[in-house]
């Protein structure tokens, strides 16, 4: 009788282990998808906001056509291409937007425009959200990859085709705290 109990117990432990590891791999895979869709939502939002911004700025700052054109050109890249390309396009736009917000200093009328201020707030929150969603995405991907490659979960990952994912790489200079040296 006793050997049977031991055999059944071992099988039960194995089954529980397989179920738990499989479910946690699935959870992480879904979290990756979910954090990418957060980035996706924010990039689309930026894509929609940019024409409004360009139209508002155009009326006040006629000499800045070049900067505005650059933003318009990069804008389509926000919603097309691979995740990595879209993130890179967003990074370019971020640079151009910074100069637009900076030039508003030279145009007092623009700086006082309620619509412009509202767009500026909207665009900066979407930018922060892209940054935070990217941070979350990379953290989730890293956790997932560690889980996927660790023994013994890696056996399951191989069996059920949990493929390796890549993190989104971008110079994160703007998020890093400045290091002060004395």
């Amino acid at each position, binding site marked *: 009788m006793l050997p049977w109990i031991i055999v059944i117990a071992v099988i039960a432990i194995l089954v529980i282990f397989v179920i738990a590891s499989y479910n946690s791999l699935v959870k992480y895979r879904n*979290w990756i998808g979910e*954090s990418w869709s*957060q980035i996706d939502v924010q990039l689309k939002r930026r894509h929609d906001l940019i024409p409004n911004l360009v139209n508002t700025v155009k009326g006040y700052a006629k000499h800045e056509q070049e900067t505005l054109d650059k933003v318009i050109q990069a804008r389509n890249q926000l919603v097309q291409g691979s995740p990595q390309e879209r993130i890179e396009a967003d990074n370019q736009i971020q640079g151009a937007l910074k100069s637009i917000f900076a030039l508003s200093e030279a145009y007092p009328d623009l700086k006082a425009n309620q619509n412009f201020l*509202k767009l500026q*707030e*909207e665009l900066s*929150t979407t930018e*922060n*959200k892209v940054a*935070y*969603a990217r*941070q*979350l995405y990379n953290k989730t991907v890293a956790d997932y990859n560690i889980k996927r490659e660790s023994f013994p979960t890696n056996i399951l990952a191989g069996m059920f085709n949990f493929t390796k994912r890549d993190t989104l790489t971008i110079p994160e200079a703007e*998020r*890093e*705290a400045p290091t002060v040296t004395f």
Partner: protein
Amino acid sequence: MLFQQIAQNKRRTFFLVILFSVLVLALGWAIGYLVNNDSVSGVLITLVILVFYVPITYMTASSQVLRMSGAQEVTEAEEPELYHIVEELALAARLPMPKVYLIQDPSPNAFATGIKPEKAAVAFTTGLVSKLNREELEGVAAHELGHIRNYDIRLMTVCIALVGVITLIAEFGSRMLFFGGGRRNNDRNGRANPILLILALVFVIVAPIAGQFVRLAVSRNREYLADATAVEFTRNPQGLIHALEKISADPHDVQEATNATAAMYISPPLGKNRRSRASLWATHPSTADRIARLEAM
């Protein structure tokens, strides 16, 4: 690390409930013994109070705290910047968007409430919103979302409720003792043990104080963890450091804060003019200690 912290918090909540329940029942026994030489009914009465009071507090604490502090819910259209900051950090923390509340008070402070992340709310004073810049507000919002994600609020709410019960029963008991004549049934069972009697009396006096100590120690501990969690979200300790400096430098108390709600705020909202507070009685670690730990990150 993170999941251990959350699991540890849930375990702690459970043990606190057990520990405090035993303490409360012992208190009931002591009062029953002292007042009527009838420990059984003392225990029964406290059991009834415990069974009703704690779940009711647990369910209604969030709305009570918000109401007591005079907080008003705000929408995205009313406070775009504040709302967006909370939205950004909820995203970073993978939490559902909490409700955002504003308290009309010039003293800068903030707190979070809600037993579950799904029902959470964060409240900011108008003073905080006007005195802090975006980076600092991000630090504060991240600290509050840290409390939500770590389930600190559940732990603190249970603590406050249980200490409330102990205080209530101890007060009730000592009133009966000193004003109700006491030990009316001496004749029925006059062989009360004097040592037990003294022990019971000491217990009635000490229990509420001990409960407060536990509550305050738990509260201080959770603040450090929430600071660390905030940095995990923002990756920027400077925002929170500057925010804590500005908040603690402000000389005004939060008008609607009470001793019961003080532990919920990011920085002590009361007693700002009493400089020398013994640290054992503080709801929060000192700002200097918190900043030192943040700077080491």
